[in-house]
C-alpha cells in the first residue's frame, strides 16, 4: 500500500486534541519540542453551535447530541453499547469532549487516591493528592475556572482566578433545603468564565454548555490550550484518524499510520508518542496496534488494556417547585455541589461515595419530551400543559456522580463488525454496574429526594440510572508500579514501550467520585512536565 510521509523531524506525536492532548502540546511546544498532533475531528467555532438559536432544543437531540452513536458524524466511530446500561458520551474534534462538557471543575479528594489503604478495595494510586495539588492549581488558573475559595469539604483552601457563577434562584432554594438538613453545599466550581478571561468572553447563561458554548465562555481545550500551543509551534493536523501505531525491532514506537480527510493513508514518524484519545479511543488504538512483537496489542503485556472500565453511573433526582425558579438559565454547569455523602461510612452498606451537583433543567421542549414506553396521555393532550406549567422554570436536578470501582470484566474490546468512515474497527463496551455502586445509587437517590423535599419541592422524580450519562471514560490502561498489573507508570510511560505515553483518563487507577477532567489535566501536566524535565534520559525512536 502506498503510504504518504507526513512531516519528518517530529519529537513528539500526540494522538487526540482534547484537553489531555492540549496540555501535552502546550507544555512540550513551549519547552522547545517539535510537536505534531493528529486529531480525527475538526475545529468548531462558537457560531457553529445552536445554543441561543431557535433550533437549539431540536438539534441538541441529534446533531449536537453527546453520544457519537446518535450524532453519527464522520469524525465519530461506532461504539456498541448494547450490553451496557450507560451510553458512552464524547466529542471527537479539536477540544475533544470538553466541547460538550458541562464544565464541572472538581478536584478529587485526598481519600480518592488511597482506597485500598482506607477502604480495603481496589488499589491505591502511585501518588497522592498532595503530589497533584500544584498541578491542579496551575491548570485551574490557566483555564480560568470560576469558583469560591474555602469549601470546607477540602483539606486545603484552593483558589480560583474568577468569582463563582450565579447559583440562581433555584440554587438558593436548594441551598436553604441543605441548610435545614445541616448538609454540606458550596457554590460550585465551573470551568466556565464568569468574567472575560484571556481569549474567552463571560458566560451569558444560555444553559447550552453540553451542546457547545455559543459564547466561547466555556473552558474547552480548543480555547484554553490549542490556540496557544499552535502559537508556540505545535502542529495540529485535523481530519487525521490514527489507525495503528508502528514499532521497530527494538520494540519502540516509531509513529502512526493515519488516514487523512481525503482518505489517503499517511505516516507520521516521531521519537516519542503520546496517546490522549480518551478512555475508549486509547484502548481502541492500542488493541488495534498488533504486531509480531505485540500480538495482543501495544503495551498490553499485563492484559489490562481496555479492562477495568469505569464510567461513573449517574442518577438524577428532579424536584418541581411551586415558585418560579428561572431554572431555564445556565450555566449547565453546576450551581451547587455537595460532598455530604462523599466519604465512606460503612453503616450505609457500601464503601466510597458520590458527588452531587445541582443543575438547571433547560428550555421548554426538555420538559415535554415523551419517553418510549410511557402512556402518550401522560405527556401529550391536556397533560402537555400540566407538565409544562409544573416543570418549566420550576424544576431542578440533583445529579449524583458515583464512584464505581474497577472490575476486570468491565471492558472496551475491538468490534471488527462495525467500522468507522475510514474502515477502522469500532469498539464494544461490556459494562455492568457493580453491587457496591448499586447500593450507593439507592442510598444517594433517597438522600437527594430528602434534599428536594427539605427545599420545598412539591413533587420529585427519581431516575436511578441515567442512560445517557457515560461522559467519564476511565481506567482502561491503569497506572501502577508493577508491569504485571498495570499498563503505565506514574508519569504515563507505558511499562512495555519506553517511548510511548498515555495521559488521558485511561490511566486512572480508581475512578474517584468526581468529574474527572481537572484530574486528567493535572495528571497530564505532571506527566508531560516530567517528560520535558527528563528529556535527556528519554529513550527515543530514530
Amino acid at each position, binding site marked *: 500500500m502506498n503510504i504518504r510521509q507526513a512531516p519528518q523531524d517530529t519529537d513528539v506525536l500526540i494522538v487526540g486534541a482534547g484537553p489531555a492532548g492540549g496540555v501535552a502540546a502546550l507544555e512540550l511546544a513551549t519547552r522547545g519540542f517539535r510537536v505534531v498532533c493528529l486529531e480525527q475531528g475538526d475545529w468548531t467555532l462558537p457560531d457553529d453551535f445552536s445554543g441561543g438559536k431557535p433550533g437549539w432544543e*431540536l438539534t441538541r437531540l441529534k446533531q449536537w447530541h453527546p453520544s457519537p452513536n446518535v450524532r453519527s458524524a464522520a469524525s465519530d466511530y461506532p461504539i456498541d453499547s448494547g450490553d451496557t446500561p450507560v451510553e458512552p458520551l464524547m466529542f471527537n474534534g479539536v477540544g475533544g469532549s470538553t466541547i460538550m462538557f458541562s464544565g464541572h471543575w472538581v478536584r478529587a479528594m485526598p481519600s480518592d487516591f488511597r482506597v485500598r489503604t482506607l477502604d480495603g478495595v481496589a488499589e491505591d494510586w502511585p501518588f497522592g493528592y498532595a503530589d497533584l495539588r500544584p498541578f491542579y492549581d496551575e491548570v485551574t488558573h490557566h483555564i480560568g475556572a470560576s469558583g*469560591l475559595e*474555602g469549601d*470546607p469539604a477540602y483539606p486545603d483552601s484552593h483558589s480560583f482566578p474568577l468569582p463563582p*457563577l*450565579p447559583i440562581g434562584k433555584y440554587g438558593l432554594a436548594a441551598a436553604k433545603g441543605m441548610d435545614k438538613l445541616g448538609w454540606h453545599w*458550596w457554590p460550585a466550581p465551573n470551568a466556565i468564565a464568569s468574567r472575560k478571561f484571556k481569549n474567552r468572553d*463571560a458566560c451569558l447563561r444560555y444553559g447550552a454548555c453540553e451542546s457547545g458554548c455559543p459564547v466561547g465562555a466555556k473552558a474547552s481545550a480548543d480555547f484554553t490550550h490549542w490556540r496557544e500551543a499552535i502559537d508556540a509551534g505545535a502542529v495540529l493536523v485535523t481530519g487525521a484518524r490514527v489507525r495503528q501505531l508502528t514499532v521497530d525491532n527494538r520494540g519502540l514506537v516509531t509513529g502512526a499510520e493515519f488516514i487523512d480527510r481525503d482518505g489517503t493513508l499517511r505516516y507520521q514518524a516521531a521519537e516519542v508518542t503520546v496517546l490522549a484519545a480518551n478512555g475508549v479511543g486509547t484502548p481502541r488504538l492500542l488493541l488495534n496496534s498488533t504486531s509480531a512483537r505485540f500480538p495482543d496489542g501495544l503495551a498490553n503485556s499485563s492484559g489490562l488494556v481496555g479492562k477495568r472500565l469505569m464510567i461513573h453511573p449517574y442518577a438524577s433526582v428532579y424536584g418541581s417547585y411551586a415558585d418560579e425558579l428561572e431554572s431555564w438559565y445556565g450555566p449547565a454547569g453546576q450551581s451547587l455541589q455537595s460532598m455530604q455523602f462523599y466519604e465512606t461510612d460503612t453503616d450505609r452498606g457500601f464503601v466510597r461515595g458520590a458527588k452531587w451537583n445541582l443543575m438547571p433543567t433547560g428550555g421548554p421542549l426538555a420538559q415535554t419530551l415523551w419517553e418510549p414506553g410511557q402512556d402518550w396521555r401522560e405527556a401529550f393532550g391536556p397533560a402537555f400543559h400540566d407538565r409544562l406549567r409544573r416543570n418549566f422554570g420550576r424544576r431542578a436536578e440533583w445529579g449524583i456522580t458515583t464512584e464505581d470501582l474497577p472490575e476486570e470484566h468491565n471492558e472496551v474490546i475491538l468490534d471488527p463488525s462495525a467500522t468507522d468512515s475510514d474502515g477502522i474497527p469500532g469498539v464494544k463496551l461490556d459494562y455492568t454496574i457493580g453491587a457496591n455502586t448499586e447500593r450507593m445509587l439507592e442510598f444517594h437517590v433517597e438522600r437527594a429526594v430528602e434534599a428536594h423535599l427539605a427545599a420545598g419541592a412539591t413533587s420529585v422524580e427519581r431516575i436511578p440510572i441515567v442512560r445517557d450519562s457515560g461522559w467519564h471514560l476511565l481506567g482502561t490502561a491503569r497506572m501502577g508500579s508493577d508491569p504485571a498489573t498495570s499498563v503505565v507508570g506514574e508519569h504515563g510511560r507505558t511499562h512495555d514501550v519506553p517511548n510511548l505515553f498515555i495521559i488521558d483518563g485511561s490511566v486512572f487507577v480508581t475512578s474517584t467520585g468526581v468529574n474527572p477532567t481537572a484530574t486528567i489535566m493535572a495528571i497530564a501536566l505532571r506527566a508531560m512536565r516530567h517528560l520535558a524535565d527528563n528529556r535527556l534520559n528519554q529513550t527515543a525512536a530514530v
Partner: protein
Amino acid sequence: MTLDAGQRRAFAALADVLIPASGPMPSAAEAGVPDALVDQALGYRPDLSDAFIRALASCSGADPEAALGQLAADSPDQFEALTVLTAGAYFLSTRVKAALSYTPPPRPAHEDTDTYVDMLAEVVDRGFPNRCDRPTKDSR
C-alpha cells in the same frame, strides 16, 4: 423537505389533539404548528422526516386519539418523531413564547454571592465530616 397538502391535513388533525389550547396557551394549530413552523422544525431535524411521514400515514383517516395510542405502543420511533417535531415547532411560535411569559437567555452572569454569603458562614461552621487523611505539612 415539504409536506404535501394531504400530509399537512393529516398532521393538522393530530396536532391539536397532541397540544390542545389551555389557559393562555394556544393550541398547536392556533400557534401555526401545521403551517410554517413544522417545516422549520423539519429543517432543523431532517433525520426525523421519514419517521414523521410514516407516522402521518399510519394515523391518516383514523380517529386521532385511538391512532396516537396505537402509534405510541406499536411504533415508538414514529411517535417520538411526531411529538418531538410537534412540540419543537410549538415552542418556535412567537405566540407561545409570549404566553410562556419568561425572559429567555442571554443574561449576564452577575455574581449573586450576596444572596447566600450568610448561609455559607454556617456551612463553614458546620465543618465537614472529613476523614483522618487530610494532608498535613509533612505527610501526604
